[in-house]
C-alpha cells in the first residue's frame, strides 16, 4: 500500500519556492531518510504531509488530503518535531490522561510500560526533566499510538550520544514493523545510515537523489587510491575527491567494482560523503 504520494508538490513563501514541484511515492513499511542542507525544504515537506501548511499540487497521505483532513489524519499519523515541543507545564501523569482522552489509538498501558524502563517520575512536570528524558517521554507517548506513519523532524537534536542511540534502537526494536512507515529528517546523517531503507536528498525544494539503501550501496563506491594510481582514478570520472592522511579518497558512481578494486582499497561510502559530493556537484552546476 502507498503511504505518501505527491505529484507536483509546491509551496512558495512570498517569491522563494520552498518546495519546487516534488513527486514522491513512499510505500508502507519503509523508513525514509530525508536529507538536505538547511533551508532545502525538508521541514516544509513534512509540514505539508502533516497538514500544517497549505500547498499546491497533489498530496495524499494514507489516502487523505492533509490540509483538509488533519484531524482524521492525526489518528493514524504521529509526529515528533524536536524535543522542545512538549508543553513544559504539563505533568507526566496528566499527559497520559490527556492522550488517553483524545487519541482513539493510544494504549495507555503500553506507554506506562515504556516509562517504567526510564527514570521519569509520573509526578514530574516536563520542565523538570532533562532534554534526554523529554525525548524518552515523547517517544513513550508516540510508541503507544498504533499509528501507520511516524514523522520525525530532527528528533535527536541536542541529545547526547547515549540517548540518540537508544532513541533509534527503541524505535526499531519496539515499534517499527512491516505495516508502519517512518519518515525522518536529521543532520546526524551517520546515525541513520543503518536505520533507513530509503534515502532522499533534497535541495532548494527539489529532489536531487532518490534511492533505496540497497541501490545506494550498489551505485556508489569509495576507494582509497594509492598515489601512483591517481591519474587512472581520475580517468574514471569520480564524482568527488578528497585528501585523507596524504592519500586521496575518490567517490565513484555507477562504475565497475573490479576496476575500482585495482586502484586501491574500496569501501561502502557513508551517506554524509555522498551527500557532500552530490551537493557540491549541484552548486558547481549552478555556477
Amino acid at each position, binding site marked *: 500500500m502507498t503511504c505518501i504520494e505527491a505529484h507536483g508538490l509546491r509551496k512558495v513563501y512570498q517569491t522563494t519556492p520552498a518546495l519546487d514541484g516534488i513527486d514522491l511515492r513512499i510505500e508502507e513499511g519503509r523508513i525514509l531518510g530525508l536529507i538536505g542542507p538547511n533551508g532545502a525544504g525538508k521541514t516544509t515537506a513534512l*509540514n505539508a504531509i*502533516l497538514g500544517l501548511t497549505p500547498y499546491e499540487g497533489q498530496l495524499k497521505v494514507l489516502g487523505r488530503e492533509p490540509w483538509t483532513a488533519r484531524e482524521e489524519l*492525526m489518528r493514524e499519523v504521529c509526529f515528533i*518535531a524536536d524535543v522542545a515541543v512538549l*508543553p513544559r507545564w504539563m505533568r507526566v501523569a*496528566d499527559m497520559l490522561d*490527556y492522550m488517553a*482522552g*483524545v487519541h*482513539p489509538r493510544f494504549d495507555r498501558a503500553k506507554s506506562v510500560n515504556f516509562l517504567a524502563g526510564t527514570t521519569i517520575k509520573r509526578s514530574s512536570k516536563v520542565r523538570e526533566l532533562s532534554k534526554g528524558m523529554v525525548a524518552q517521554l515523547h517517544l513513550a507517548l508516540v510508541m503507544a499510538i498504533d499509528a501507520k506513519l511516524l514523522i520525525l523532524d530532527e528528533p535527536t537534536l541536542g541529545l547526547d550520544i547515549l540517548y540518540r542511540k537508544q532513541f533509534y534502537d527503541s524505535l526499531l526494536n519496539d515499534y517499527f514493523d512491516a505495516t508502519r512507515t517512518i519518515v525522518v529528517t536529521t543532520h546526524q546523517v551517520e546515525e541513520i545510515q543503518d536505520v533507513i531503507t530509503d534515502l532522499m536528498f533534497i535541495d532548494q525544494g527539489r529532489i536531487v537523489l532518490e534511492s533505496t539503501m540497497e541501490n545506494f550501496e550498489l551505485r556508489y563506491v569509495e576507494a582509497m587510491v594509492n598515489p601512483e594510481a591517481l591519474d587512472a582514478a581520475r580517468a574514471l570520472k569520480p564524482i568527488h575527491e578528497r585528501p585523507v592522511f596524504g592519500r586521496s579518497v575518490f567517490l565513484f558512481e555507477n562504475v565497475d567494482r573490479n576496476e575500482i578494486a585495482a586502484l586501491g582499497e574500496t569501501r561502502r561510502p557513508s551517506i554524509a560523503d555522498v551527500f557532500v559530493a552530490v551537493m557540491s556537484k549541484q552548486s558547481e552546476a549552478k555556477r
Partner: protein
Amino acid sequence: MNNTLATTDAVSASGATAKIRPFYWSVRRELWENRSLYVAPLIVAAVIVFGFMCTTVGLPERRRAVLLLNDPAQQRTAIEMPYDIAAMMIMFTAFIVGVFYCLDALYGERRDRSILFWKSLPVSDLTTVLSKITIPLVILPVISFAIILVTQFAIFLITSVVLVLHGVSPATTLAHTNLFQNSLILAYALVAVSLWHAPTYSWMLFVSSWVKRAAFLWAILPVIAIAFFEKIGFGTQYFYSMIRYRFASWASEAFALRLGPKGTPVLDSLSQLTPGRYLTTPGLWLGLLFAVACLAVAVRFRRSRGPV
C-alpha cells in the same frame, strides 16, 4: 481468522471511541495549564475575607445603628454592602483573568512551540478554539459563582460570630436581607455578563491567534486608534460610544435598576431581572455575531499559523 480479527478490531475501536472526549479533555488541559483561572479569584476572595475581618471591630455598633433606621431598603443596602462588594470584586477579577487568559491562549502555544505537539493529535482547530472560549464564557462564571457563594458565606459566619459575642442577634442579617434571592440574582448576572462580554473575549482570542508578539498592545491599540482617528477625522464618537456601551451598559440592559436614596443603583427584587429585554437587546446579538466572526477567523489562523 480474518473475521475474528476484524470483529475484535471493531469492538476495541468502538470501546476506544466511547471514552474519547477531545472537547472535555481540551477544557481540562486549559485548567491544568492556567491555574490562575481559579487561584486569582481565590486570592482575591481570601483578601476580601481578611479585609472584612479587619472591619468587624465596629460591626455591632454599626448593626445597632442600622437596625434603628426606618427605611427597610436602607437597612438592607447597609447590611448587604460587604456581600455585594465581595461579589463585584470577584467578578471583576474573573473578567481580568479571562481577558489575559484569552490573550495568551492561542499565542502562548505558538511562542513555546507546543502547538506542534497539540497539532500532532487528532483534535481539530475548531475543538481547540471552542474549548478555549469555553473557559471565559462558562468555566470562569461557574468558578466565580462558587467562590462568591463561599466568600459570602464566610462573611455571614464571621458577622454572626461577632454579633453573638456582642449580644446582637445574628438573625438580624437574615431578617433584613434575602441571601438566597441574591444568589439567584448573582447567577443571572454572571450569565448575562459573560454573554455580554463574549465579543470582548473572542476579540482577545482572535488577536492571540494572529499576532507574532505583544498581544496586549495589538488588542488595545487598534481600538484606541480607531476612536482617536474618528474623533479628529470626522469629529464623531460613534466607535467610542460603542466601546463604552459594551463596558458600561450590560447591567442597565439586564436589570431594571432603580436609583436609591443616595443616587446609587439598587437591585433588591427578582422583578428587576429583565431577561426578556436583555435577550432582545440588539447590542447583545450584534456582540455575539461579532464574537462568532472573531472565533471563525481564530480557527482559520489556528489552522495555518505555526510557531513564532
